[in-house]
């Protein structure tokens, strides 16, 4: 670094002690019922990690069934009891596993675990606020999430098992307790848990939006916001506008189940008995569900896009390419997200004309997505890239997003979707573009901000091993599924050996299952690394270890409640002045020099 541009001195000096002596905190107010956004973020993260371990384990269990349908594993009976009699997972439990895997990963890990962690942690720190607009609501947001988790977990211990109608809980299967074991109490707990979850999301979202728009520090204009914050703003807006619609749908489903209404039910015969319900429409639920369900995948991917934009810029020591285009494309994705839900319903008998409109709107999403991908690549192009676990996972995200995104163009087209709908092609698509990609972004974020969260570093070597196993594993698991989908192999089936046409995939399914087990085991490295590093990791000695420009690195190494000692720093520039005018980086708090070039 030719001239010194150090961390700003608005904080006075590096000050590692807990400075907030004004309010002494007990163990309970500091670690449990905390109102500090940083602690709430850690609560979300650790709960999310626990959920991810459970949800991932479920996928291992059902992959054992899919990969080895003709074999028995006595240890499964020891663990699962009557769900795996004779060492073979029962069909009912298989459906419960698939359903809960989807529910847990989509909502509890990649929505609450992801937004809850990074929005809570980064918004106040990066906009320059001492806490969220309402720390109380923020705390409630976590505890509603916790309550939702308790309800959802308790459903695993029911005699009839948890919900088993797929994570989309379509009626009539979900609306009639007699339809299957998984439609009984497990379904009620699923709906109750989701209602609590929605309340948690809304409380969080309200806070995120208000804090970003209303509590920025002096000089922090909207165009000086880091892209992480922009992404979290759009995520929160999407959540606040679409989760209530799911709430309506869930409420009507609860009424159908328990109060005898017929919103989604009509002309149903169960075991020769004609049900009295008349006049309802199962498709109505699909409309209400997917009006949230589709924006939901953007609620998952947008925060990660922000995280990756930030990390790629920092680790390639280059300004982000096309800042405004990045914001504009986030906005475009946000709008389009709400206008494409019926592309999940091409095979419901949807009017083909309406379908063609949804095809057009769906394919339009490729435009902002391509802009973002182009900008990420041009950001790292000829950059001075530092390959840390964080930057590798961020680059891995871009790779997954491209691989999974391209197949979205196939599926968004109704003519092709009619063939590929509900096959393994769809599974491969959304796991790569939304599931694995979001996980990559989340890992990148955790490796990058861990020093700010805990004042220690995570272990790099374990990080590299974790990255390579996960990257290769994810592609080995999901790439072959495209071919299975092309051949028409449907999703959610218990045993494919019963069909002559799918017998040829026996070996492939076995391969996928073995890789899935190895990849899951590799995630344990991350978990061990995470928890070990909280207490034993190498200590952070520099307030700004990654030499980044954003405001969170101007706080003490372990900031107390209130974040900054003394005044909140003032912001003078955008956050992406890297490799500028001979400086490696120029923090946002550095005033613009007289003869400084514009970015």
């Amino acid at each position, binding site marked *: 670094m030719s001239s010194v541009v150090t961390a700003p001195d608005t904080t006075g000096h590096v000050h590692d002690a807990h400075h907030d002596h004004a309010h002494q905190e007990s163990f309970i107010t500091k670690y449990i019922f905390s109102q500090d956004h940083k602690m709430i973020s850690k609560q979300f993260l650790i709960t999310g990690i626990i959920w991810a371990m459970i949800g991932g384990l479920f996928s291992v269990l059902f992959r054992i069934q899919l990969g080895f349908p003709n074999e028995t594993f006595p240890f499964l009976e020891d663990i699962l009891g009557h769900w795996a009699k004779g060492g073979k997972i029962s069909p009912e439990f298989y459906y419960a596993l698939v359903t809960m895997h989807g529910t847990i990963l989509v909502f509890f890990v990649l929505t609450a675990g992801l937004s809850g962690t990074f929005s809570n942690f980064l918004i106040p720190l990066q906009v320059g606020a001492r806490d969220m607009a309402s720390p109380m609501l923020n705390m409630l947001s976590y505890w509603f999430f916790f309550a939702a988790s308790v309800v959802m977990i308790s459903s695993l211990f029911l005699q009839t098992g948890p919900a088993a109608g797929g994570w989309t809980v379509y009626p009539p299967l979900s609306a009639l307790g007699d339809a299957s074991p998984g439609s009984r109490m497990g379904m009620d707990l699923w709906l109750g848990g989701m209602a609590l979850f929605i309340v948690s999301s809304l409380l969080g979202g309200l806070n995120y939006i208000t*804090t970003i728009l209303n509590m920025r520090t002096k000089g922090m204009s909207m165009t000086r916001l880091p892209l992480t914050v922009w992404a979290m703003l759009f995520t929160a807006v999407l959540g606040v506008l679409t989760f209530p619609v799911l709430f309506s749908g869930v409420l*009507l489903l609860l009424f159908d189940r328990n109060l005898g209404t017929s919103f989604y039910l009509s002309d149903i015969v169960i075991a020769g008995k004609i049900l009295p319900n008349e*006049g309802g429409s199962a498709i109505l639920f699909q409309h209400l569900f997917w009006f949230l369900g589709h924006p939901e995948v953007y609620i998952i991917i947008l925060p990660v896009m922000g995280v990756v934009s930030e990390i790629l810029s920092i680790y390639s020591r280059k300004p982000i390419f096309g800042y405004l285009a990045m914001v504009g494309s986030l906005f475009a994705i946000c709008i389009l997200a709400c206008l494409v839900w019926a592309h999940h319903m091409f095979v419901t008998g949807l009017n083909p004309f309406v379908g063609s409109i949804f095809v057009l709107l769906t394919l339009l999403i490729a435009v902002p997505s391509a802009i973002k991908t182009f900008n990420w690549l041009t950001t790292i192009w000829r950059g001075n890239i530092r390959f840390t676990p964080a930057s590798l996972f961020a680059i891995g995200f871009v790779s997954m997003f491209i691989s999974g995104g391209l197949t979205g163009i196939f599926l968004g087209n109704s003519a092709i979707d009619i063939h590929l709908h509900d096959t393994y092609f769809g599974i491969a698509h959304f796991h790569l573009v939304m599931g694995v990609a979001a996980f990559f972004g989340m890992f990148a974020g955790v490796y990058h901000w861990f020093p700010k969260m805990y004042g220690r570093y995570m272990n790099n070597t374990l990080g590299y091993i974790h990255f390579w196993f996960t990257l290769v594993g994810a592609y080995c698991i999901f790439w072959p599924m495209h071919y299975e989908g092309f051949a028409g192999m449907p999703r959610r089936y218990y045993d494919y050996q019963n069909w002559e046409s799918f017998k040829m995939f026996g070996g492939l399914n076995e391969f996928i299952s073995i890789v899935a087990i190895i990849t899951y085991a590799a995630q344990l490295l991350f978990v061990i690394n995470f928890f070990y590093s909280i207490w034993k990791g190498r200590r952070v000695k520099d307030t700004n270890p990654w030499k980044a420009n954003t405001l969170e690195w101007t706080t003490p190494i372990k900031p107390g409640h209130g974040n900054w000692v003394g005044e909140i720093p003032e912001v003078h520039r955008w956050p992406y002045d890297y490799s500028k005018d001979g400086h490696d980086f120029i923090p946002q708090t550095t005033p613009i020099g007289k003869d400084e070039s514009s970015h």
Partner: protein
Amino acid sequence: MLAGAMEQKNKIHPHKFTLWVGIGSILMMFAGLTSAYIIKRNQVNWETFELPVAFWWSTGAILASSITLFLALRSFKERQVHRYRMLLISTLVLGLLFIVLQIVGFANIWAQGITFTGSVSYSFLYTIVGLHALHVLGGIIALIVMLFKAYSAKVRNYSVVPVELINTYWHFVDILWIYLLAFLIFIR
């Protein structure tokens, strides 16, 4: 921790802003229900219904309550404590009257055979009107809290923000009711 907000004047109070976003969220829930209603209406087996007269009376009650609450805000700003308390009580009574009249309306149509499970259209009617009443009940709870504060000798906080917050929310549920009433009258 509102220190951050205090450092920046000229901006809308964060709690007010949060309320507005929350209102947007509540609106989306009703938008979900009313659009489901419209989709369902265009399908077979849709039964029409007449709204009970009690709903007109309840409309009068909630409109009047909005006026009393607005006047309460004005009295608060003018430091006329006695008038403020009286107007707050009037609003509370009118709000409760609204709830009672909704229940009376439900009882009337139930007696005419329009029951909750009778037809999908009836289920929608009860769900939409019932959910709105729950939101009014939320406002009533807030009013009771305000009333306790207004009579408590310990409270020496003259911030106008809570009074403005309850005003915004109360007018919102009022306008929401007018919208829902018009919706249920014209789209049957």
